[in-house]
């Protein structure tokens, strides 16, 4: 039993989300395949469920429709308003992609979410960032868009203090927090699961009956946290979609 512990990747480290290359240098890793898999799953799922749409939906069609309906009504219409419905397909895609890739973190054999690597949330955040800035500039023109976002309604001397804060919070902090929130949640979840599962095996590999019995507690925690990760996976996808919608709404809003 003692040699078992030596082979385990213990303790968990940041290196655990930098996966080894499968082919083509660093360009194809397990994450690359997982992203392809997620895209394929989502496309196939919506193609199959919407193939022969019926007025009285089948169970599959009902499921797909309720996902789209939830984002369309619950996120897009609520946050952006009626003119925002044209963003519902993008937000639904975004939501589904993040849910599926997050769920990979708890699916046996896959067992790690691409979103636990900062590169993937960063790209998603850049997409949202480009989207809301583009929409704002297209609607208001660059000058007016910047004026709306940078110059609050305040007395002139205060503006010296306020304009840098507005700039920082709108154009720097927004994409940063969008990416970091998703990344940190998925990374922390992955680390927690590693700590309790691998840690359980490490405890089991010790020579002491007391520490060995603690491994039961460790495995129990791993199971509870796996269920908890399901909630986190969906919640973080929802938060990402809501915040993207809210930024789009802010960019499209008329001057107050």
């Amino acid at each position, binding site marked *: 039993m003692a040699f078992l512990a030596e082979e385990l990747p213990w303790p968990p480290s940041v290196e655990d989300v930098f996966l080894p290359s499968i082919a083509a240098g660093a360009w194809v890793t397990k994450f690359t395949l997982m992203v392809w898999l997620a895209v394929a799953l989502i496309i196939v799922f919506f193609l199959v469920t919407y193939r022969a749409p019926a007025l009285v939906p089948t169970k599959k069609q009902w499921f797909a429709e309720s996902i789209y309906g939830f984002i369309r009504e619950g996120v897009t219409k*609520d*946050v952006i308003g009626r003119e925002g419905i044209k963003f519902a397909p993008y937000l639904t895609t975004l939501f589904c992609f993040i849910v599926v890739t997050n769920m990979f973190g708890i699916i046996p054999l896959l067992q790690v979410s691409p979103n636990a690597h900062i590169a993937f949330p960063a790209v998603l955040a850049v997409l949202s960032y480009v989207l809301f800035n583009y929409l704002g500039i297209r609607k208001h023109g660059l000058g007016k868009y910047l004026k709306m976002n940078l110059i*609050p*309604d*305040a007395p002139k001397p*205060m503006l010296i*203090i*306020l304009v*840098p*804060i*507005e*700039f*920082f*919070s709108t154009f*720097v*902090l*927004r994409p940063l*927090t969008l990416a970091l929130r998703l990344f940190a949640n998925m990374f922390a979840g992955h680390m927690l699961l590693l700590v309790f599962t691998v840690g359980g095996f490490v405890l089991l590999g010790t020579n002491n009956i007391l520490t060995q019995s603690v491994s039961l507690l460790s495995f129990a925690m791993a199971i509870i946290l796996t269920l908890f990760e399901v909630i986190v996976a969906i919640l973080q996808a929802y938060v990402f979609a*809501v*915040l993207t919608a*809210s930024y789009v*709404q*802010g960019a499209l*809003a008329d001057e*107050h």
Partner: protein
Amino acid sequence: MTDGQPSKHPEADGANMGWNAVGYLLGGMAVWGFIGWLFDQWLGWDGIATGIGVIVGMFGAIYLIVRKLGV
């Protein structure tokens, strides 16, 4: 964002306002703290300008929150 407009969906607004407020507070301290830090480096002080900068940033952030997110 949603400032000043009556909304039918207070929960969604509440979450957005929360994120905005946190963003302003962090942003205010970071931006003016950094400007203060630059002064410290330039003039060779040992941190007093950074401290003043952070306080100025917080002041600005709270002003913005009250102005833009307040009732």
